[in-house]
């Protein structure tokens, strides 16, 4: 069977074509086509098929990570969303959580972005539910109709209904949707109790609104893709990568696009999980460094941690996402020295794709992290980025010289400073997902990927002591590997709030069972026109409960067994929670616990794609892979180094540092005193020389 994984990035679209029978892989990298990403996707698939000599029509499965939803929010190009709130709550998005970022005085320079549903498109419904689900005041339908008519005249493109306490009783939301479908039959309406039936009115509203906001863009994109695929590939099945690292069937993705906001970063983590599995390494910290940002995540026993919120720009929604920490620093981050403090700062400004780093010779003049890498020799001049870009060391040096002059350092010292500062920020991100969660990074391997990850891999390894540091094959397109190798997933949750000691196990297990059904239905879209044909016997179910000490605000998510819950055996659950609390926060409390949210997760069958084990010894030697002699600057000194071609390195080879290993879309630096070993799956494993 032929499977395709596609990852659309800002600059390039990466495609991985897998022949699952023979475990052969073919990759292609083509320019992204931002005006209509589906063009780039098709170009990439076509190119990979040519390389593999495969007929496009033979492709059966396409899995895809996309930033369409994310970009709609970041660029403010989503739908005109109308909002219906409970009377007295029309400004729920305007007031938000009243939070002003920055420290004392942060308000002096805080610029708030306008809400995704503008106040002028917000109407209030005269109705009220109590926290316990009781109707306090019935819905004034006549008044609502009038308000909806007014909204209709403002040409909204989507409607969102989010009422107070609807997590405990959705009757009014549903009734309003019915009325709306009469008043404006062509406008899609969504209700918060379906998208996210959880407590906290702002979070529920912003999540539901964000869903509506990105939906038209995502729907259009998916239907474009499906049309192309059905024409050229006999309707190969399409799945989209969710923020939580699972796959959504195309119709499910189109209906709940709020689950796709972190689709991009999730691809890399999914890829890392798979590569780690293949290499027999199940505890991994991922380090995905690109041009403008770097993503870090922790994988324990082959599973990434999932967080119950997703943040894009200023918007934080309640949707599960892999716990990926992003920092706004990457190869394009600009270094500068403020006059006032004479401190060396890197970022937050980035040179972006245009003009890009000075070394790219596209008009950039500011010193970037990439330029510093060029100056230090980590990124050799003959390296072609993405195959067609030249690097000019003289321009990089000229740019970095500005920083050197401001600090009174040599250009090499300044460049090394820039790299060290940015490494320290990366290290901060690694700490966030590891040490601060009670994990010791020394128990993990760092996996470096993305365009710039392998350049900084050795340095990060020294900081985190997460040896060996893994540079997977094709580090620039690991996301596409992730897309192709993860499994279908959906989840459903709801808020209950019940003290553990009063909880009724059989009622809870009933609720969990219903959630499981609803998650399964959401996955297959059963009952809708778009129903997906899937053998339900292949599905796997998991259950979780969000728990806290009575009175705490934040919850910890504890996996539970349905049988234990049904039997009312809460002791093990309580124990798991206490242990988790202690691991995270160094102490536990002798306090009552409460169940806050129930959640069921449904998973499709696991991937059958494997990396071939090319274990046979190679006939060539390491020296056959050497391209040229070179110099790198490290720890204040110049070192003689060799440049190697990764394509010519075979399993069992060991490259001794100082060295630079180049491949199509990435470069790995090996420092003095370190070595890079090629394992049986062709990963580079960096570690200090024994």
């Amino acid at each position, binding site marked *: 069977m032929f499977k395709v994984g596609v990852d659309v990035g800002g600059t390039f679209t990466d495609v991985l074509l897998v022949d699952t029978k023979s475990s052969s892989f073919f990759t292609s990298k083509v320019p992204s086509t931002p005006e209509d990403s589906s063009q780039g996707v098709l170009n990439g698939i076509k190119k990979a098929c040519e390389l593999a000599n495969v007929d496009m029509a033979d492709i059966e499965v396409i899995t895809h990570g996309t930033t369409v939803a994310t970009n709609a929010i970041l660029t403010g190009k989503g739908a005109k969303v109308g909002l219906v709130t409970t009377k*007295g*709550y*029309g*400004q*729920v998005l*305007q*007031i938000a959580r*009243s*939070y*002003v970022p*920055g420290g*004392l*005085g*942060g*308000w*002096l*320079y*805080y*610029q*708030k972005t306008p809400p995704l549903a*503008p*106040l*002028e498109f917000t109407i209030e419904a005269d109705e*009220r539910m*109590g*926290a316990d689900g009781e109707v306090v005041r019935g819905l004034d339908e006549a008044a609502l109709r009038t308000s909806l008519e007014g909204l209709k005249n403002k040409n909204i493109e989507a409607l969102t209904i989010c009422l*107070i*306490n609807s*997590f405990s009783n959705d009757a009014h939301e549903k009734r309003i949707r019915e009325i709306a479908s009469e008043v404006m039959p062509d406008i899609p309406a969504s209700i918060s109790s379906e998208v996210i039936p959880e*407590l*906290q*009115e702002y979070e529920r509203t912003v999540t539901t609104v964000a869903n509506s906001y990105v939906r038209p863009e995502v729907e259009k994109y998916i239907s474009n893709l499906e049309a192309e695929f059905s024409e050229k590939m006999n309707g190969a099945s399409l799945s989209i990568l969710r923020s939580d690292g699972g796959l959504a069937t195309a119709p499910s993705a189109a209906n709940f696009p709020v689950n796709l906001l972190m689709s991009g970063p999730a691809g890399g983590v999914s890829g890392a999980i798979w590569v780690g599995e293949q290499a027999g390494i199940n505890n991994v910290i991922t380090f995905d460094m690109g041009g403008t940002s770097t993503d870090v995540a922790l994988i324990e026993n082959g599973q990434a941690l999932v967080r119950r919120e997703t943040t894009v720009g200023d918007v934080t929604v309640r949707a599960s996402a892999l716990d990926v920490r992003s920092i706004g620093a990457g190869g394009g981050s600009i270094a500068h020295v*403020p006059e*006032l*403090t*004479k*401190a*060396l*700062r890197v970022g937050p400004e980035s040179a972006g794709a245009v003009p890009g780093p000075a070394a790219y010779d596209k008009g950039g003049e500011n010193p970037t992290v990439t330029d510093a890498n060029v100056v230090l020799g980590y990124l050799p001049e003959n390296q072609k980025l993405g195959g067609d870009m030249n690097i000019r060391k003289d321009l990089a040096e000229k740019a970095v010289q500005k920083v050197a002059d401001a*600090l009174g350092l040599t250009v090499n010292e300044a460049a090394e*400073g820039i790299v*060290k*500062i940015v490494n*320290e920020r990366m290290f*901060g991100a690694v*700490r966030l997902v590891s040490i*601060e969660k009670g994990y010791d990074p020394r128990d993990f391997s760092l996996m470096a990927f993305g365009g710039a990850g392998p350049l900084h891999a050795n340095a990060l390894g020294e900081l985190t002591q997460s040896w060996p540091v893994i540079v997977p094959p094709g580090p620039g397109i690991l996301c596409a590997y992730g897309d192709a190798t993860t499994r279908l997933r959906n989840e459903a949750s709801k808020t209950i709030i019940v003290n553990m000691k009063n909880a009724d196990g059989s009622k809870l297990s009933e609720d969990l069972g219903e959630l499981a059904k609803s998650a399964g239905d959401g996955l297959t879209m059963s009952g809708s026109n778009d129903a997906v044909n899937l053998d339900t016997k292949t599905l796997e179910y998991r259950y979780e409960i969000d728990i806290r*000490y*009575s*009175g*705490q*605000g*934040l919850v910890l998510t504890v996996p539970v067994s349905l049988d234990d819950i049904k039997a009312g055996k809460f002791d093990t659950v309580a124990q798991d929670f206490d242990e988790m*609390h202690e691991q*995270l*926060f*160094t*102490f536990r*409390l002798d*306090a009552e616990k409460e169940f806050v949210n129930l959640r069921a997760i449904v998973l499709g069958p696991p991937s059958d794609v494997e990396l071939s084990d090319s274990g046979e010894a190679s006939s060539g030697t390491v020296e056959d892979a050497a391209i040229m002699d070179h110099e790198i600057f490290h720890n204040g000194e110049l070192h003689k180094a060799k440049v190697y071609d990764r394509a010519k390195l075979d399993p069992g080879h060991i490259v001794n540092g100082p060295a630079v290993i180049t491949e199509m879309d990435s470069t790995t630096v090996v420092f003095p005193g370190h070595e890079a070993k090629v394992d049986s799956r062709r990963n580079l494993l960096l570690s200090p020389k024994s």
Partner: protein
Amino acid sequence: MHEKILETNPTPYNRLEVDPITLDIIENALRNTREQMDATLFRTAMSPGIREQGDAFPMIANVDGKMVVGQFGSFIHGFMEAFEGTIEEGDMIFTNDPYSCGGAVSHLNDYLVIKPVYKDGRHLCWAAHFGHMTDIGGRAPGSLPNEAREIFEEGVAVPPVKVFRKGELQDDIIKIVLRNSRMPHWNEGDFKGVIAACNIAERRCIEMAERFGDDVFYSALDELLERNCRAMQKLILETVPEEVQTFEDYICDDALGSGPYKIKCSMWREGEKVIFDFDGTDPQSPGSINFLLNEEMFKMFCGTFMISAFDPQILFNDGFYDYMDVRIPEGSLLKPRRPAALSCRTHALGRIFDVLSGLLGQGNPDFLCGAGFSDSPHFMYSGYDKNGEWYQLYQIGFGGIPARPIGDGPDGHSLWPGFKNVPNEFLEAYFPLRIETYESITDSGGAGYHRGGNGIRMGYRFLEDGEISIHDDRWLTYPWGVNGANPGLRSTKELVRATGETEMLPSKCDRFEVKSGDILYFNTWGGGGVGDPLTREAERVLQDVHSGLVSPEAAHDIYGVVIADGAVDEAATEALRAEKAADKSEAKLFNFGDELEELRANCLAETGLEPPAAPDFSKSRLAAE
């Protein structure tokens, strides 16, 4: 202070030259550590006050007690001066008594924990944290009695004691304070969170010293202080004139029927040094609005204000303290004598920021903001529910951020760092009440070229008989506007009884009885505006009108914008604006609304409340002499 700190390893530190890159790396690592302290506490705390509203502040200081990272500046030096006895490895000091620590914390609710960090028997640095406990006893639920006249009425005061002695928890102390709280389980959770955060800071600092070397870590902290100092020196020279600038603002009343109380500050520069002199500030109040202002803390406020505008990436620290001199008269509202009550100091603490803003802005009108949401309104509701269970809510309110030179002030937001509102659904799930209205108040933000943020109207419907306490201000004086803008609207508190009767409640009151079915409208004030409202782009005014943030009447009368059929009538607007501009007198730098005498005269008619009597300082003046 060093002689009070016992070390088993007396080797002195070596002050080394730290290269700028290492310095920046350590700066980043310290910043991360501070964020981690916050995260630990916020996630584990029990009370909504800390965990949602973030009323807690961490700090790391060098061996001399100077804050290297943190929020409110260091108090360790003053604290150690007052501390009797010695400190050893494994000790952790706890206090909540402002009078025992030179105002390091300024009311009893703030539990302060200080940990000397040791490495290999040597004192390496300090970690400290304080958080606001919901209830510590005293005469009113929430332990912030408006009507207290002595600190003895405000809860249990703990002078500096060792809550850990050589690593051993002194459980007795915790038992005593918890026994005196109406909300012991919240206090316990919050207190443990504060302690955990300090322990985490300790671990990180030791790791940093291990990684870079003890001497490098020690020297880097010093160097960070010096770097900050150099930056502040420049700022002081550039922004503070030599001639004396003076600014006054007020606390409206003291909950005992007197007010307003004046806070006056003068500022000038002598060479490289800036002097802040609070001479002319009113004497201390017999009530609880006194604010024991720690001089070092005030320096931090200033530094923060000045630095926010320039290199916001800079790590605030104590390095510049020698270049600021703060003079506060003894026996004044800002330096009261024990046993003056202190619990409701938040009004003065907030107002200090308006005073600062006005002072620093006079010489730099381009940087001038409107009067802030310069307080932290509190609301409390407590009693026994139908099942006989005690409930007690303590909530912090938000309002209009003032307009800034960079744009409008956000509506209904927080000026305090890290604070968030509590979700209303959470309140309704855990307390016997419903929030029936939660919106910003149209036209409450001061009109200007940049509009002040609107205040919030929060309608609490009570579902049980109980008692409420209110803490707010700016009900008499206005949040002023600047550079030709209007002030924001003042705050009000309106109680609508289930029977339909309406009464205005004072902005400060304790244990006021409410019945099931009553609604309290807790209305906070708006931020002051910046610049002439007649110059605001008509499209922006139109947008505000469509959004319901500004009324059509205000758009016409104050902004001079004529709206017809949902669009701006350009010609009519131009004419109206020209007419209004001609009528306008010369724009003042500050627009305070009415003069004090007028405020008093119109008080009853405008606010529904009797004006406060002028404070009688005859007794406190004697005390001050």
